[in-house]
């Protein structure tokens, strides 16, 4: 089956994330993109606008440098849901969680709204605190 263009955008963004290429990711976001970072930790909150989103992702990458591994990707004309495994080490902490990541995309396959939610929120909060 040919990948849906929305799935392609998300897969390429994840590849870019794993290789640390934030500029590539930036190109996939709309100007007014929104990022919801769940939980109760230093990263939690809603980031509005591409600059704020990229700022948050930059911080996440620095503190985290996480490796992501795609488990499944579902795509429709308006949405993608990515299920991925994230692992990271920071100082003496390690992280190993599964994220469900719902994404809203525009008609030209740009990312316009993203939610992060881990399956083990307390482990996730602890890692980020």
């Amino acid at each position, binding site marked *: 089956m040919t990948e849906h263009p929305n799935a392609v955008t998300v897969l390429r963004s994840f590849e870019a994330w794993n290789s640390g290429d934030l500029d590539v990711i930036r190109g996939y976001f709309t100007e007014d993109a929104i990022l*919801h970072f769940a939980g109760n930790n230093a990263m939690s909150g809603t980031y509005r606008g591409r600059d704020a989103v990229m700022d948050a992702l930059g911080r996440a990458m620095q503190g985290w440098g996480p490796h992501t591994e795609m488990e499944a990707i*579902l795509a429709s004309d308006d949405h993608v*849901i990515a*299920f991925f495994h994230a692992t990271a080490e920071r100082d003496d902490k390690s992280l190993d969680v599964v994220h469900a990541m719902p994404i809203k995309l525009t008609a030209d396959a740009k990312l316009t*709204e993203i939610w992060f*939610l881990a399956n083990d*929120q307390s482990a996730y909060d602890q890692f980020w605190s």
Partner: protein
Amino acid sequence: MADHPNVGLLREAISTFNQGDFDAYREYFTEDVVWHVGGNHPLSGDYRGRDAIFEYFVRVRGLTGGGLRSEPQDILADDSHGGVFTRVTADRDDRHLDVVLAQAYRINPDGKFTEYWALADDQDAVNAFWA
């Protein structure tokens, strides 16, 4: 392209939820299902096991005088995963909730939900509604 069977399963489950038939709704879950509710409000957190989840539903129903109403806008699925973008409305005393919830499901080969995540587009509105 025909919808994946799990799209139909999710649509059916949500319609059962809307009818408030919890006995029928229970059948969609495994015993050891895990349910992740995002946000920072008294109902946020991880619920482990079907009983814990249904206690949560009963609480929600009690607080909202009948429960939430869920109108799916988009349903996605493969053999072992599902996703639903759904408009959720509810009333609680003089508070009104109207948000889009992004839901993710893990589905086992028997067509039962084993794990669930939910997050709202306007988390502040959800937090205020449950506060």
